[in-house]
């Protein structure tokens, strides 16, 4: 805390002398500002960052110029050569101070390593300078997030200037929170209570720890008013935190449920409606993920502009790829085995072995690189440490869409009716003119296609390699059997149930126990209700 007070005094003094004419320091002084950033022990480089920020605060240096320098240090592109300080970039070299093109051979040199002590200061400096250099710019949200994390080391003067910028109006409340952290130790109790109140409005684990540290400090809590404000602030935060924790577990339960549902849906169609036990369902999911990868690669080379939307563009391809493999499976092997469910089990196991090794031989075994589209990257802070990550939200939304589509196809369309007819009574359906063969093919194609689409939905979350399908198959079967064979809604309900139970048990007993307990619960449930939750009515 001492570092901050000392700097405040120095800044104020400096301002007094130059109050009248904010003049830009000359090039030599600027170069001296940057030189210590090039190399040396991280302690000196941290001090150098402080000095650079002070220079900006006093108007001696331009925010944009300082920002470029700090980002260069972070990317190891700031290099000190005999001619001065240079910034290298992929294309060439420029003088860090005058931006004039510099010596060509400096391009190869790499700036000094940035260790974990220096990096926070660089990140904080870049964040606050970005708010000054381009107020209200695209990256200002992320910059605010960074400043909230670094509240203790942010120079208050710059924060006030950033908050004062009209373009940063949207970020003002957040910036004032950051200032509140600084004000916590303000001698004037009124300011301190206001700061405490402000922190209590933004409940997070970090703010609670800040307040708890304060309540430990006897000098502050001697004043009853402050002590009361502190206690009240902490309780309010804790109430929000528990709420946030509940929301977080419901959200992760929902996201795990959507993963289970999407993986199990194809199986619900194939096993549920067709009675075909498909142990290769996991591999159809893998093929969908590989198809998505191929679409991404194709877009990269053909239409780089659209590469960010590869997930949406790849839906038909993933559906078609897995659907085609599914139909090929059905025509060559499954067709002979409709009357022999146990042999289908062994046949599909052999096919899954075949698919894994075919992909292994062609694509190799390394994990595929998906560059996750920007709108799926990271997450957003909802309230009290409850973070919604975009890729899981995409999976949840995707699962709901696929559920709706499947229900519509099966309940509302004639194809759906035929499929259910063939399932109910294969011979009777044949008698009334429904060509069972054609329906088998289409249903199998749809079931496999759904698995392909599941692969697409799972690619942002799971790593994609030939053997990725293996960890879905047992869970998917359990969800289908629990949900009631042949009922899509049952599969959805079962996935939701398993997802929620899994998430509540995991923190208590750990990941392994959660999986074991859930499986045992399902096995016991099946004993008493073999037909599952949503048993299809009628005599079996």
């Amino acid at each position, binding site marked *: 805390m001492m570092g901050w007070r000392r700097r405040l005094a120095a800044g104020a003094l400096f301002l007094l002398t130059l109050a009248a004419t904010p003049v830009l320091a000359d090039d030599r002084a600027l170069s001296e500002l940057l030189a210590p950033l090039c190399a040396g022990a991280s302690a000196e480089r941290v001090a150098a960052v402080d000095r650079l920020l002070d220079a900006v605060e006093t108007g001696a240096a331009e925010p944009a110029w300082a920002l470029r320098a700090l980002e260069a240090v972070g990317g190891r592109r700031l290099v000190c050569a005999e001619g001065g300080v240079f910034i290298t970039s992929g294309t060439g070299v420029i003088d860090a101070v005058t931006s004039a093109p510099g010596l060509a051979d400096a391009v190869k040199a790499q700036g000094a390593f940035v260790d974990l002590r220096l*990096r926070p200061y660089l990140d904080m400096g870049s964040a606050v300078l970005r708010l000054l250099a381009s107020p209200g710019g695209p990256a200002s949200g992320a910059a605010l997030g960074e400043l909230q994390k670094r509240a203790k080391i942010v120079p208050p003067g710059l924060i006030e200037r950033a908050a004062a910028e009209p373009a940063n109006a949207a970020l003002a409340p957040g910036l004032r929170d950051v200032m509140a952290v600084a004000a916590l130790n303000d001698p004037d109790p009124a300011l301190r209570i206001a700061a405490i109140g402000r922190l209590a409005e933004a409940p997070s684990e970090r703010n609670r720890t800040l307040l708890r540290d304060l309540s430990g400090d006897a000098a502050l809590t001697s004043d009853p008013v402050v002590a009361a404000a502190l206690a009240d602030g902490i309780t309010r935060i804790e109430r929000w935190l528990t709420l946030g924790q509940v929301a977080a577990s419901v959200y992760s339960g929902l996201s795990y449920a959507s993963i289970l549902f999407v993986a199990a849906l194809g199986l619900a169609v194939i096993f549920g409606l067709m009675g075909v036990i498909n142990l290769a369902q996991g591999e159809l999911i893998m093929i969908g993920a590989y198809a998505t990868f191929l679409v991404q690669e194709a877009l990269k080379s053909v239409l780089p502009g659209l590469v960010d939307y590869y997930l949406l563009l790849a839906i038909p391809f993933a559906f078609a790829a897995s659907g085609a493999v599914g139909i090929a499976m059905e025509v060559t092997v499954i067709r002979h085995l409709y009357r022999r469910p146990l042999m289908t089990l062994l046949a599909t196991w052999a096919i899954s072995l075949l698919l894994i090794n075919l992909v292994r031989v062609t694509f190799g075994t390394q994990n595929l690189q998906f560059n996750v589209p920007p709108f799926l990257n990271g997450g957003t802070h909802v309230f009290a440490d409850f973070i919604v990550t975009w890729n899981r939200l995409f999976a949840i939304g995707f699962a709901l869409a696929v559920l709706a589509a499947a229900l519509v196809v099966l309940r509302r369309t004639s194809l759906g009716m035929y499929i259910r007819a063939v399932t109910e009574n294969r011979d009777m359906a044949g008698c009334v003119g429904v060509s069972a063969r054609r329906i088998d093919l289409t249903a199998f194609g749809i079931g496999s296609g759904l698995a392909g689409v599941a692969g697409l939905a799972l690619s942002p979350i799971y790593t994609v390699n030939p053997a990725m399908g293996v960890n879905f198959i047992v869970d998917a079967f359990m969800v289908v059997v629990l949900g009631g064979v042949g009922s899509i809604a049952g599969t959805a309900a079962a996935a939701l149930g398993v997802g929620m139970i899994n998430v509540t048990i995991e923190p208590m007993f750990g990941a392994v126990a959660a999986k074991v307990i859930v499986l045992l619960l399902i096995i016991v449930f099946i004993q008493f209700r073999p037909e599952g939750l949503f048993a299809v009515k009628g005599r079996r």
Partner: protein
Amino acid sequence: MDRRDFLKNSAALGAALAAPAIITSRAKAADSLKLGCLFSSSGTMANIEGRMNAVVQMAAAELNAKGGVLGKQVEVLVTDPSSDWPLYAQLGRQLLLQDKCSALFGCWTSVSRKSVLPVVEQNNGLLYYPLHFEGEENSKNVVYLNSPPASSVLPALDYLMGPEGGDAKRFYMLGSDYVWPRTINKICKGYWQSKGFSESAWREQYVPLGFSNFQTIVNDIRKFASEPGGQPIIVLTTVGSSIPDFFKEIINQGIGATDIPVLGLDVLEADLEGLDTAPMVGHLNCWAYLQNAVAPANDAFKANWKGFVEKSNLAYSPTTVIDPMVSAYDGVHMWAKAVEKAGMADPDAVRAASAGISFDCPSGYTIKMTGENNYVSRGVFIGSVNDKQAFDILWQSKDTPTPVPFSPYA
């Protein structure tokens, strides 16, 4: 049951039971020194372990180019234990007894080493084990090419607990549930106790092999991190596909190296293949070799590997080079030197001759074996993830610290 049926049945049965005999008559090449490889190219370990066969073949090719060993060509026999631990033992037995290999290069996970250990000990074979591991073992039939925890975990912990590394005070240990992570964590706890930390300073969590849904665990880590008591770090000992899955989750939940640094003890350049490492910059690992090690021997090795992969168009990335590959490469050359020195390839002679053997490893260090145990002294690098799916060298040891097989903190 007339006579014809009886003859037909017993003939079929005899042929079937005789099958094992025929499978062992593999082509006996001319008089050559045979090296057996026990690295899986299928199953869960396929991605990272498969490329080890290729690097042993490359090293053997280098030896053969220089006239072989003791004038004989070196032949490499590759098998595929397909990540199935009993199969490691079975194929190890096959390579030793049937194919009469002079030495075995194999195993990645500790469990595969533990299953081959009884085979080499019962049949007096020699296994060169290229991975850094939990130590607590010193069999005369195994050459430990890589470092035990004293020189592969503690240096990195010291760095992170020191001022440079952000003086970490609290530790979240997350590992796959098997012997390597459990032993490493046990040693770390002993070490922290010796430094005066109390029990409340750490938390231990294990996940099954191949675990992939880290959402709840990262929530738990964020809660642990924001509790008071000083800078938290994560000691990550998960393996295989759990590594990229874990990093994907912490990136999505907005945790960077400046918030909670991750010391990934099994994280290799190969694990970063499928990831955009920009948000991961700053996380750490600790190996005896890093791809960016600055040494002429390293540039030569990388060029050799690129050429070898392209020449035999293997499915592995020609530019990614990882510590275990270099350790296996060193192992083949040190074995060759020991055989030359001993004048014969018999395991006991090679073990005796190994004392004092040294080799300038692509890592830039001269690694050597002392007579007192079967360990090879290796250099130590602490790497920090950069945005080009590799590691910048953050710190490296001055010379090769002597290996400590049995840790005082276990």
